[in-house]
């Protein structure tokens, strides 16, 4: 076994590999760029080597530097993680030449699977199911109809030179094929100057399901079940799970065996993943093979108990696999949520900066439920502009799918991040989403269910009752403390009312609940009162929450509830299950007076061009009085080294320009104003 390995990566995956290496008694070497000087993986490793400036192209992607770091530290092997050099055959070759082991597959396998056409050929040869299609030139509409008939409807006609949806048509019958063939050809010619088109099967209601496998140098290859990664936003995986709610044992076996066949065809000898697209009739088609550890590997580990990194290291060191196909079982269900530094309310724009607060839920297993959080950051650390904006991979495991999902909801509710925007509300909303919970998902889930992006969600009646109870509880705790202040008139204890109104504003509604409170031995008893004073329902809140704690944890009617709290000018902002609510607790009189207050109408920002993110104004392209057309560039703002063209959304005349080149603007700062 190796005595020392180097991890040619950063962030959570570097930390993840170090953990297993440490468990195996192997020393670890981290590499780091200028931006990662104080990163967690550097802190965790036994040794660390600086390899260059912040941009990956000048550090983590430099093969020579990494080999030099191995030499310097005497590392015998390199784990590449994912991304960066993990699937670069040149890196594997260079390591081989340097006599350093690569904790990954052989060079041939990387090369073969790294090439789209080559990998399809291998797949076909290994009798792996691929998307049916005709790659030759199609001469006439009649030809197209014949080929489409052979493939089976629906089919997709695509420009050979295509991209971005141009020259693409979906046809459900012969007429549509004829029509689509002609228009696709014309469009291809005008867009790409090349009118060749091809036809392939159009997979309806597609799901992304992949098979994890692990192989050794002795010809043993085992598939370690599947993962479903259909919840994607613009081809970026957001939520993954294992097993898939869709596969039956027969399909799983067929997919697994085909994957093993493909792996054997390239003498695969490490952990790898074969990705498939699966249609609504459980037909599955090979997409590609990833010759590395996948981001979402923890869900597989959680349901199988196999440490994939450990297996990778062992087979790279020439050991035999310790698991056989029969050993691989499915135990319960695991879900992974990728927590990204992005603003879900602003079309998921990346959000970088200092992690003012980073308090993940506690890891571990209790009552058959597990939380695992793979991360490479810490409180007070930085989410840098140079790398992937992933903050953490939060995984939960439970006996069945809904248990895992519900536990994920709680874990997300307890995950505290301040300082940057993050997608936890969005993830929380998906966990609550009926369609997701039903398992009836496709890769189109996010686009279909959130067609206009994410704007927060409302909460169900029962959940909002709980949230109201929590708000009431918070207020009571504060009130009880407030009356203990020094300097009160002697012997005249302040009367604290026992009837209150909780006004709660959620995404689209305002509710008011009158409550009578009573302290009891167990906790705070709440009578929810109707307008006529009769008791509509009774609730009990039990918690040892104290003022200042940003997380409320307790029981409402015996149900565990975790809610994040932020102070507002009046009352609290509460975050729960993806929903954000403002709750204010007032006396009955206070509540009636509050209703007299005018609604503050935010100024019509449609008239303004606002800075979408903190950034530097590079240029202003228009002047006061200019007439502009929709789509015209108005200003260029640089943020995170990226130039963003801000364009006019409609025609108009510029009334006022408020910013100039060189200005450093905050988010929502006014750049210019229309008439």
């Amino acid at each position, binding site marked *: 076994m190796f005595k020392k390995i180097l991890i040619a990566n950063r962030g959570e995956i570097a930390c993840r590999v170090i953990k297993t290496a440490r468990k195996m008694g192997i020393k670890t070497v981290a590499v780091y760029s200028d931006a990662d000087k104080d990163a967690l993986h550097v802190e965790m490793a036994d040794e660390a080597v600086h390899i260059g400036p912040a941009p990956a192209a000048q550090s983590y992607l430099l093969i020579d530097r990494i080999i030099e770091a191995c030499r310097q530290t005497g590392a015998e092997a390199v784990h590449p993680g994912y991304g960066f050099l993990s699937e670069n055959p040149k890196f594997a070759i260079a390591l081989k030449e340097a006599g350093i082991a690569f904790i990954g597959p052989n060079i041939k396998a990387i090369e073969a699977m790294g090439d789209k056409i080559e990998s399809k050929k291998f797949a076909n040869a290994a009798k792996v199911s691929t998307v049916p299609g005709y790659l030759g030139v199609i001469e006439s509409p009649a030809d197209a109809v014949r080929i489409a008939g052979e493939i089976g409807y629906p089919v997709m006609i695509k420009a050979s030179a295509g991209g971005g949806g141009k020259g693409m048509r979906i046809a459900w019958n012969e007429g549509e094929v004829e029509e689509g063939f002609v228009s696709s050809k014309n469009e291809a010619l005008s867009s790409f100057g090349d009118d060749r088109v091809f036809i392939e099967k159009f997979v309806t209601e597609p799901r992304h399901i992949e098979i994890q496998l692990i192989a050794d140098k002795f010809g043993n290859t085992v598939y370690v079940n599947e993962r479903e990664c259909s919840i994607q936003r613009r081809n970026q995986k957001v939520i993954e799970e294992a097993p898939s709610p869709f596969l039956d044992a027969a399909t799983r076996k067929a997919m697994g065996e085909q994957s093993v066949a493909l792996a054997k065809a390239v003498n695969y000898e490490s952990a790898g993943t074969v990705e498939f697209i699966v249609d609504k009739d459980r037909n599955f088609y090979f997409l590609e093979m990833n010759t590395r550890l996948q981001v979402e590997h923890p869900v597989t580990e959680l349901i199988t108990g196999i440490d994939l990194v450990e297996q990778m290291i062992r087979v790279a060191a020439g050991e035999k696999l310790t698991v056989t196909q029969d050993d691989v079982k499915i135990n319960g269900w695991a879900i992974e949520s990728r927590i990204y530094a992005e603003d879900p309310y602003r079309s998921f724009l990346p959000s970088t900066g200092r992690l*003012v607060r980073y308090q993940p839920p506690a890891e571990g297993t209790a009552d058959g439920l597990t939380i695992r959080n793979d991360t490479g950051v810490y409180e007070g650390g930085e989410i840098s502009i140079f790398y992937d904006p992933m903050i953490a991979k939060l995984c939960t495991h439970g006996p069945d799918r809904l248990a895992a999902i519900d536990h994920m909801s709680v874990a997300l509710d307890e995950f505290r991040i301040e300082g940057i925007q993050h997608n936890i509300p969005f993830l929380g909303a998906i966990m609550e989403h009926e369609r997701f919970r039903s398992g009836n998902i496709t890769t189109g889930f996010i686009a279909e269910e959130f067609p206009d992006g994410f704007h927060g969600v409302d909460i169900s009646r029962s959940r909002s009752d709980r949230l109201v109870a929590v708000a009431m509880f918070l207020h009571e705790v504060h009130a009880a*403390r407030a009356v203990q202040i*020094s*300097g*009160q008139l002697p012997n005249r204890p302040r009367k604290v009312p026992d009837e209150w109104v909780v006004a709660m504003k959620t995404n689209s509604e305002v509710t008011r609940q009158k409550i009578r409170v009573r302290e009891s031995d167990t906790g705070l008893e709440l009578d929810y009162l109707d307008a006529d004073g009769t008791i509509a329902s009774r609730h009990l809140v039990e918690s040892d929450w104290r003022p200042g704690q940003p997380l409320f944890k307790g029981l409402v009617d015996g149900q565990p509830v975790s809610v994040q709290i932020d102070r507002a000018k009046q009352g609290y902002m509460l975050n729960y299950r993806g929903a954000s609510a403002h709750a204010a607790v*007032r006396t009955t009189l206070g509540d009636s007076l509050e209703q*007299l*207050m005018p609604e503050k109408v935010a100024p019509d920002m449609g008239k303004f061009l606002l800075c979408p993110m903190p950034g530097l104004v590079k240029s202003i392209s228009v002047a006061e009085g200019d007439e502009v057309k929709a789509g015209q560039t108005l200003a260029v703002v640089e943020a995170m080294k990226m130039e963003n063209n801000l364009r006019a959304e409609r025609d108009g005349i510029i009334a006022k320009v408020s910013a100039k080149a060189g200005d450093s603007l905050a988010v929502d700062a006014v750049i210019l104003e229309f008439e």
Partner: protein
Amino acid sequence: MKEILRKLEERRAVARLGGGEKRIAAQHARGKLTARERIALLLDQDSFEEFDMFVEHDCHEFGMENQKIPGDGVVTGWGTVNGRPVYVFVKDFTVFGGSLSRAHARKMTKVQDMALRTGAPIIGLFDAGGARIQEGVDALGGYGEVFTRNVLASGVIPQISVIMGPCAGGDVYSPAMTDFIFMVRDTSYMFVTGPDVVKTVTNETVTSEQLGGASIHTTKSSVADGAWDNDVIAMTQIRRLVDFLPLSNRDEVPERPYFDEQNRIEKSLDTLIPANPNMPYDMKELIHKVVDEADFFEIQESFAKNIITGFARIEGRSIGIVANQPMVLAGVLDSDASRKAARFVRFCDCFNIPVVTFVDVPGFLPGTAQEYGGLIKHGAKLLFAYTEATVPKVTVITRKAYGGAYDVMSSKHIRGDFNYAWPTAEIAVMGAKGAVEIIHRADIDDKDKIAAHTKTYEDRFLNPFVAAERGYIDEVIMPHSTRSRVARALALLKSKEIENPWKKHDNIPL
């Protein structure tokens, strides 16, 4: 007998209705609450005791003798905020537009006198049309009586003013002499002369909002210390403020149970200071992580943002915080920042509120705009305020403490009690570049030499140790232990005793 009792209730009911249902409805339509509604929100439930409910004016001019409304446009009395006494006078816009008569002024001065005598804060809620013109010089005299009491009470009891409607002419000077002025956005404004007079005299066309709205007074003029969106929020927040303040200058700061850890370690503060000395960071993060429960009541949040002032608590006891804000103008001291902080420090000193100062200051802002604007005297105000203050003063230098600004920011030399520095502190006359260009003027054209000199200067002076070697810093502390160190220092300083030489009063450079 019963008949007599009933009569009292009747008279009370009439008085409580103020200017009548119609005017109350009009007040609500403007998005404002009535005087008594405001009081109900401001004070503890059922704690208000009203004085002079039946007072009427005695004006006989212009037919006023036929228009009398009990209360005469102001509601006065006392009540409690979380059990602690406060006095209030609240203008009633539904009665003669809240305008000030002789009788109205006497109601005000009565509670002012009582507040001063018993040592409890006084809160004035303003929503009025100014002097009652029909009363002539009686109204002006009334103002003068009110002003006199404002001045006498200054520094003895906290005086808080909230502008919740119009406040013009003579009405503005009473709030102007109190400790804090807050406003309600969109429904309040405050000016000496209104838009009509402005138009006549200077030919400027402005709206009331542009002339004296909350947006102006919280950002441009600094007349107001803060503003809130509506009456309800304003009253909630004033209650929150009162909880921070002692009842009078004879009282200790209030104390209440706290649920924060006494020795909370904040590892993340060890990475607060960026590696690059020119990169800003948010000083508010430090404040939130040091004080109890991250609860910070900021004063003048929107004005001179290069310095932060406000109230917080450590171990349940109120403190005042002054901190340079590197996010804005690098935290430089300019005239506005100096005035803002000076006034705040003096308030704290009046009322026995310890001052905790966080320092990251590159110096005073250079330039003609500042010098012509009297930076020397404005800067001197802050220096003066810190020096004369006898309350406990604890200072933490996080990064830069350059030049005269180092002295000003509650240094040991001006009677700072505990002065800590983080290891990242740079206590020096100026930054490396400026210093090297002066000390090594001869080498100015030799880049390599200048670079070497700069390095030498940085190594020698840009750290806390030169100051620590001389005892100007009591100790260099770990950022993560800031809360526990400040808390311990304050605990010790509870028994601090120091007196300034007897004087009638000092002569701060106004």
